C-alpha cells in the first residue's frame, strides 16, 4: 500500500478517536476515552509512517524531497502536529475531554487532504524555487506554530462553553478542566505557538532573501502571517500587561486561529509565491 492509501485510512482513525473522545465526554465513559487515546496514538503512528513512506516513495520516483512541499503534504503534517501536541497535554494535565475538542480538528485537516477533489495527493518533483534547505525548517516551524494555535483554539472553545454553563453538578461541562486551567493552558499554547510562528516567519524571510534578494516583500502570504503574528502579540500584551484573562483572551485566541486559517487557505484569493504548486 502506498503512503496516500495509509494516510486516507488514518483520516478515519482520527475520526474514530475524535468520536470516542466526544462520546466518552457526553456519556461519561472513562473506558471509552482511554480507548480513544490508544486510537489517537495508533493514528499518530500511522500518520508518521505515512509521512516517512511518502519521503521514501519520492526517492524511488527519482526526485526525492521531504514531504512538505504542497497543500496535501502540509495538511498531513499539520494533523500529525496537532495530535502530538494534544497527546502531550493529555498526559500532562490528565484530562481527556480536551481530546473531544482537538481530535476533530486533526480529523478535519486529514479529511480535507484525503477527500477533497481539489487537492492532489500525487508526489510531485520540486520546482526550482522550493529547492532549498530552508524548506524543511520553514515548514516545520510554521506548522508546529499552527498546531499549537489549533489546540489553543479548541481549549478556548472549551473555556467559553464552560464559562456559560451553570454549576449544575450533573452537567457534562463539569468534566471540562477547571476554568483557570483552561485559561492558563491557552496562554501556554499561544506562547509556544508564537515562538514557532516567529521562527517560521523568520526562516521564510531568510529563505526569501537567498532566493530573491529580499527578506520581506509584502507578498499576500507574508502579510497574512504577519497579521496572525499581530493578533497573538496583542493577546500576549493584553494578558501580561493589562491583565486580560478568560473570556477576552479566549476570544482573541479564536480570532488568532481564524487568522491562521486565513493565512493557510487564503492563498487562493490572490495568487502568490505560496499558491501551492505554481511558481
Amino acid at each position, binding site marked *: 500500500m502506498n503512503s496516500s492509501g495509509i494516510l486516507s485510512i488514518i483520516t478515519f482513525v482520527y475520526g474514530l478517536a475524535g468520536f470516542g473522545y466526544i462520546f466518552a465526554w457526553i456519556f461519561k465513559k472513562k473506558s471509552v476515552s482511554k480507548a480513544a487515546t490508544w486510537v489517537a496514538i495508533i493514528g499518530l503512528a500511522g500518520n508518521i509512517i505515512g509521512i516517512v513512506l511518502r519521503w521514501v516513495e519520492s526517492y524511488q520516483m527519482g526526485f526525492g524531497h521531504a514531504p512538505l512541499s504542497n497543500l496535501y503534504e502540509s495538511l498531513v503534517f499539520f494533523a500529525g502536529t496537532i495530535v502530538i501536541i494534544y497527546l502531550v497535554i493529555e498526559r500532562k494535565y490528565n484530562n481527556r475531554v480536551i481530546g473531544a475538542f482537538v481530535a476533530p480538528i486533526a480529523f478535519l485537516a486529514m479529511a480535507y487532504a484525503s477527500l477533497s477533489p481539489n487537492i492532489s495527493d500525487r508526489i510531485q518533483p520540486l520546482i*526550482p524555487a522550493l529547492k532549498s534547505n530552508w524548506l524543511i525548517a520553514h515548514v516545520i516551524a510554521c506548522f508546529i506554530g499552527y498546531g499549537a494555535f489549533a489546540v489553543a483554539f479548541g481549549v478556548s472553545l472549551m473555556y467559553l462553553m464552560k464559562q456559560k454553563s451553570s454549576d449544575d453538578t450533573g452537567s457534562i461541562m463539569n468534566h471540562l478542566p477547571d476554568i483557570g486551567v483552561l485559561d492558563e493552558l491557552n496562554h501556554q499554547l499561544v506562547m509556544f505557538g508564537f515562538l514557532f510562528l516567529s521562527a517560521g516567519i*523568520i526562516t521564510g524571510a531568510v529563505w526569501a532573501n537567498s532566493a530573491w*534578494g529580499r527578506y520581506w516583500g509584502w507578498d499576500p502570504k507574508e502579510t497574512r502571517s504577519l*497579521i496572525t503574528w*499581530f493578533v497573538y502579540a496583542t493577546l500576549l500584551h493584553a494578558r501580561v500587561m493589562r491583565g486580560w484573562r478568560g473570556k477576552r483572551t479566549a476570544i482573541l485566541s479564536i480570532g488568532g486561529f481564524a487568522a491562521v486559517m486565513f493565512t493557510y487557505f487564503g492563498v487562493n484569493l490572490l495568487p502568490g509565491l505560496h499558491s501551492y504548486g505554481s*511558481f
Partner: protein
Amino acid sequence: MSNQAIVADPLNKIWDFFTSVRLTIVLLLTLATTSIIGTLIPQNQDPTAYFQAFGGFLYRLFDLFGLFDMYHSWWFQLLIVLLTINIIVCSIDRISANRKILFVKKPTFNLARFRNIKRKETFKDDRSADQIQEVCLAFVKRHFRHHHVEATDTGTAIYGEKGRWTRFGVYTVHLSVVLLLIGGLIGSIFGFDGWVNIPEGESVSQIRLRSQEQVLQLGFEIRCDDFDVSFYDTGAPKEFRSSLTILEQGREVVKKDIIVNDPLRYKGVSMYQSSYGKIPSNKLVLSFTSVKTGMIYTREAGLDQLLTIPEKLGTFVLKELRRSAKFRGHDIGDAYVGILSPPNADPVEILLPARFPSFDKMRKGEVVIGLGEQAQRYFTGLQVASDPGVWVVYTGFILMIIGCYITFFMSHQQICVELTASGKQTEVIVAGTANKNKTAMATRIEAAADKLAKSNPVA
C-alpha cells in the same frame, strides 16, 4: 507655576501617551485589520488594470488612500512609526521603573513575602538543625546562582535566587523589532533593487532599478557565459542555471553557476536567478544548395564571418543587414547582404531578403543561397540587489527568537527554605516565587520539598 513646568507638561503628556499598553493593543489590532486590504487588492499593478477592475469612483477613492501600494502609504508607515515609538518608550519607561529589580549587585530577600505565600510545602525532619541546614544549603547552592543564609526570629532561612537576567527577555524582543525596522530603513536608503537581462555570451555593466525608471552603473561587468533550463518528465521546470563571470576592467575575477536559491555575491551586490527567455541570435542560419548535386548545406553565420561552401563552390561572407533594400528600384524590405566569391569568377553581391526566402534562385548561379530561420539563444533574467541593512535585520531575527524563548519559558525565581526548631524535630518550610508561570514554580517547590524530605536516610 514655573516656565519649565509649562514646557515639561505637554512633553510629559506625549510621553504618557506612548507609555500606554492600550495604545500598543490598538496599534497592533489596527495594523492587523488594515493589512488585510493589501492581501485582497493586488499591489503595485498597472493603473489601467485597477481602473477596469474597480471603476472610476472606487479607483479614485482607493488611490487617495494609497491602497494600491498600501504598505508604503503614509498612513501605514505612520502606524509603524507610532508602534516603534510605543515599543521604545514603553521599554524605557518600564526599565527605569523596575531598575531596582533589574540592576542589583546583591539580591535581597523579604521573609514576610515568602511567609505570605499560600502554596508552600512544610514537613518535619528528625535531623538536627545543623544537619538539615547543610542539606538544604547544598540543595539551594546546586540549583540557584545566588544563595544566602540568614537568622530569623524563629530559626534560620536559606535563600536562593536565579534568572534575574531573564527579566530582560522581553526587552530583547522589543529591541529585535526595532532592529528589524532600522535594518529595513538602512536597506531602503543605502540599498538598491533592480534587474537585468543578459543574453548568452554578452555582458552588462548597468542594471534597471525597480522603484524608479532609472539605470544604475554597477562598477563591474556581469557576463552570462551560458544559460540552461531543464525540465522534469511532467513538464515542470527542474532547474534554471546561469554561468556568470564577473569582470573588472575586462579581467575575469569571479566565475559561478547560479541557480534559484543560490545567488552570486560580489562586492555587496547579489545576483539572483529570477527569469529567462529567448531572443533572436545574432547568428543566421544560411542554406547553400548546390545546383549540380542538389545537396543542401546549412551553416550558422555571423557578420563578417568567412564561410567556405562545400563542393568547391567558393566562399561567402555576410556583410550587413540593409533596411528597406532596393532591387531594381523596388523596395524588397529588410535584406541581408553578403559577398559570394566563386573560385574562378568575380565576387558578386548577394541579397537575402527576409520576406522572400528563395530570392537567390533568380540569379541562376551554381549555388543558391537561402536564409533559414533565425537562430535563437537564451537570455538570463537576473535580480540584482544590494541591502547593507540585512545584517541588522538578521541580528534582529536571532534576538527575537532568543528573546521570545527567554520571555516565555524562563523566569526570575527565588526560593526560601525556613528552618525552625520544633521540639526534637526541625520544621522545614519551602516556599518560592517566580515572576512568570507561577503554577510551574509551585510544582518545582513541591518537588524540591519532596527531595529534601527524602534526603533523610533515617526516615
